[in-house]
């Protein structure tokens, strides 16, 4: 393929933060009709590069040329006007506006100088139908799930992009079906000659859709490769700067220990149908299901985020009522929530404070954790989980997405829980860390901790679960254990119910 002129050519892009060089002399060339994957570990600088390109950050050096003309977008509005549509990491839409208003913000159809709401809704419905969404665009965005919001965000960006479409981890909260749909949209756009930047930590997806990939490590480009020419291992090695140990296999599970928690007829009206569940020490219970199947609801009701309104719970044979997270924590439960931005991090507090927060809350306000002790705990987990940061004193919001996730995990590990509930623990985590977290889950299990893990990645669930509970429509519809566990079995369990 003779390379035409790049649509977008960024050269020598640099960005410095106090105490960190986020980007150093980065070059990125995008050609029309290509999907260009941007890869790298957590904190490699992918999101920062995007923000520099679209003017959300002011870059500290470098030039950007669009179709050969030098541009200097000062803010996202600028780049939008230039034909660069962007979906930033984490959904960035306005929950207080309707779906249609979100889709058309800034470019509403006008009639006689006024916004034509009817046309806007109609067009919104049509646009969304292309993405397989048949929802009422007149309802508030807030009333839809994260996944739907993500699709709306993508639709908006696509509509806005005349030349370049940038997607920063768009698939992190999507299901297989939705991913497939997104890919068909991308293919279509590709055909139209758009250049598409695609950031993800799912390498299969990279290989499925991308033409080329640029790999970043520590803010530097370590290579740009045509994907047809390389193998997955090569890419991983480039990303990590080392070889990834052979993927962890389904390790033999040692015998689970004593019965820890037993739930009977546990549920919450309007949220999750009553279910039974038992979990022993040294056991991982996986929660599988499609989007909205009730995995998060199950996790939340066990942890008391929403109090169960029916059923009984027994902890080591003793009756127990959990109506709020505090009680759960007192009983040595822990929950690492799904939405780290709104439910997890406390943005302006330092990483250190974020890590010790739950421990401190459990100890009570009158027994402060001494600074040195806090430092030690935080330091320990930063090393153990390989959290990349400039200093423990930096606000956690400045960490990259994946590193925030790890810091949250550290918060809960620091409380030394007996039951650890993880809701999408690997969302937004790079391949290296992904393997580490799976290893960590297995480690914890070996040490006798009980875990409940909700995840959309079936392979992952299969890898570490002792048992897998399958959910559908907020109801438990099956349970797999031991040798039964396989991706196929899960899919069948879900589908079987579908047929029913």
């Amino acid at each position, binding site marked *: 393929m003779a390379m035409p002129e790049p649509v977008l050519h960024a050269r020598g892009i640099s960005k410095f933060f106090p105490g960190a060089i986020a980007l150093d002399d980065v070059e990125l060339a995008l050609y029309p009709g290509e999907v260009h994957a941007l890869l790298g570990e957590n904190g490699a600088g992918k999101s920062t590069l995007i923000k520099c390109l679209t003017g959300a950050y002011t870059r500290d050096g470098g030039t950007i040329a669009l179709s050969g003309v030098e541009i200097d977008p000062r803010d*996202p509005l600028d780049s939008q006007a230039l034909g660069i549509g962007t979906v930033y990491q984490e959904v960035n839409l306005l929950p207080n506006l309707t779906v249609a208003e979100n889709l058309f913000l800034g470019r509403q159809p006008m009639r006689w100088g006024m916004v034509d*709401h009817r046309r806007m809704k109609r067009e919104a419905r049509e646009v969304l139908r292309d993405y397989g969404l048949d929802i009422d665009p007149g309802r*508030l965005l807030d009333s839809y799930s994260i996944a739907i919001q993500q699709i709306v965000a993508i639709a908006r960006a696509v509509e806005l992009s005349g030349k370049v479409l940038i997607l920063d981890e768009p698939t992190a909260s999507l299901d297989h079906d939705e991913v497939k749909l997104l890919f068909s949209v991308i293919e279509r756009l590709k055909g139209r000659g758009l250049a598409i930047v695609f950031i993800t930590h799912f390498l299969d997806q990279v290989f499925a859709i991308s033409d080329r990939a640029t790999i970043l490590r520590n803010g530097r480009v370590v290579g740009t490769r045509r994907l047809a020419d390389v193998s997955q291992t090569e890419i991983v090695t480039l990303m990590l700067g080392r070889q990834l140990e052979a993927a962890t296999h389904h390790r033999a599970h040692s015998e689970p220990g004593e019965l820890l928690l037993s739930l009977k007829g546990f549920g919450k009206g309007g949220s999750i149908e009553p279910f039974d569940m038992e979990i022993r020490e040294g056991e991982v219970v996986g929660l599988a299901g499609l989007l*909205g199947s009730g995995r998060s609801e199950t996790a939340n009701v066990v942890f008391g985020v929403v109090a169960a309104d029916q059923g009984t719970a027994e902890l080591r044979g003793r009756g127990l009522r959990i109506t709020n997270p505090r009680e759960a924590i007192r009983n040595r439960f822990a929950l690492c929530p799904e939405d780290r931005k709104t439910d997890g991090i406390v943005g302006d507090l330092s990483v250190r404070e974020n890590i010790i927060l739950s421990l401190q809350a459990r100890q009570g306000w009158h027994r402060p954790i001494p600074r040195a002790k806090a430092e030690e705990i935080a330091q320990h987990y930063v090393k153990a989980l390989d959290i990349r940061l400039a200093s423990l004193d930096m606000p956690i919001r400045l960490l990259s997405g994946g590193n925030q996730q790890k810091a949250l995990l550290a918060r809960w590990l620091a409380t030394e829980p007996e039951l650890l509930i993880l809701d999408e623990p690997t969302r937004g985590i790079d391949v290296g860390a992904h393997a580490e977290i799976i290893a960590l889950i297995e480690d914890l299990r070996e040490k006798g901790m009980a875990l409940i893990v909700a995840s959309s990645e079936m392979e992952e669930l299969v890898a570490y679960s002792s048992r897998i509970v399958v959910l559908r429509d907020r109801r438990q519809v099956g349970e797999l254990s031991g040798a039964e566990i396989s991706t196929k079995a899960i899919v069948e369990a879900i589908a079987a119910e579908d047929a029913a």
Partner: protein
Amino acid sequence: MSQSTKLPLYITLATFVLAFVLCAAQYPAMASTRVVANLLTDNAFLGITAVGMTFVILSGGIDLSVGSVIAFTGVFLAVILRETSIHPLVAFALVLLITTGFGAAMGGIIHYLEMPPFIVTLAGMFLMRGLAYVLSTESVPITHEFYDWLQSLYWKAPGGGRFRLTGALMLLTYVAAMIVLHRTRFGQNVYAIGGSAQTAQLMGVPRARTTIGIYAVSGGLAGLAGIVYTLYTSAGYSLATVGVELDAIAAVVIGGTLLTGGSGFVAGTFFGILIMGLIQTYIVFDGTLSSWWTKIVIGGLLFAFIMLQKGLGWATTARIRLLTASDARS
């Protein structure tokens, strides 16, 4: 907008109607055209101020300067009409220019210096009141035939109620505000910024322009309210309308707009104003409350309205949650 977001609006409307019926049942004279006309005329300046406040609060901000701006406008008009021979219409244009510019300047400071609106407009409140004092500490009467003419424009309804120009002006302001908020890009941007300023910016909302515009609207409408106030009292007085900002905020909130921004309707504000006016009329009709009981009752009614709204809000969200739950199951 969907039904559920309009709910607080309907609740406010229902509350007003219910309260009015109850009041009229106790004091039949309250159902007269006089009382209705008074509700409009007496609350015209507050109503106009509250429109500007709605813009500001929808965007997640607050404007404490409006009361002072009204007072300043009055004194400015009175002094300039006394000292010079310019036509009041010219003076109106001039004062609207000043107050709009003042609002825009506050918006600029809020945006460019990244300072909280509460504090910027608090300083603005001191400044405008101070400027009013500097112009004149005494109350200055306005005598001009144009004013007399404007004041003579009213329609006397059967039953003795006088529907005045200022009341009509207020209604007009509400209609205009509704169109701007729901039918223009600027209006949509106001809601967007109220939802989340950072996200709005990432979505390409011109934040600087919108923020400045919002406070300019508030300043300008406070200026307009000031003009209405001079028509109401034929004078400019530097001590006038102290604390009006709190009345306006209360009206906006009673009207169902969230102080955190991004959600609410200007029509709600209108009923908020009427409800507050009704509370006062009721207290006057009652006529037995002492000074302190008046305050306590106003506070209590404010509380009752907020709780009523909260309660209705809870009831409906619970219902909506149930509905969506059954959706998912079906």
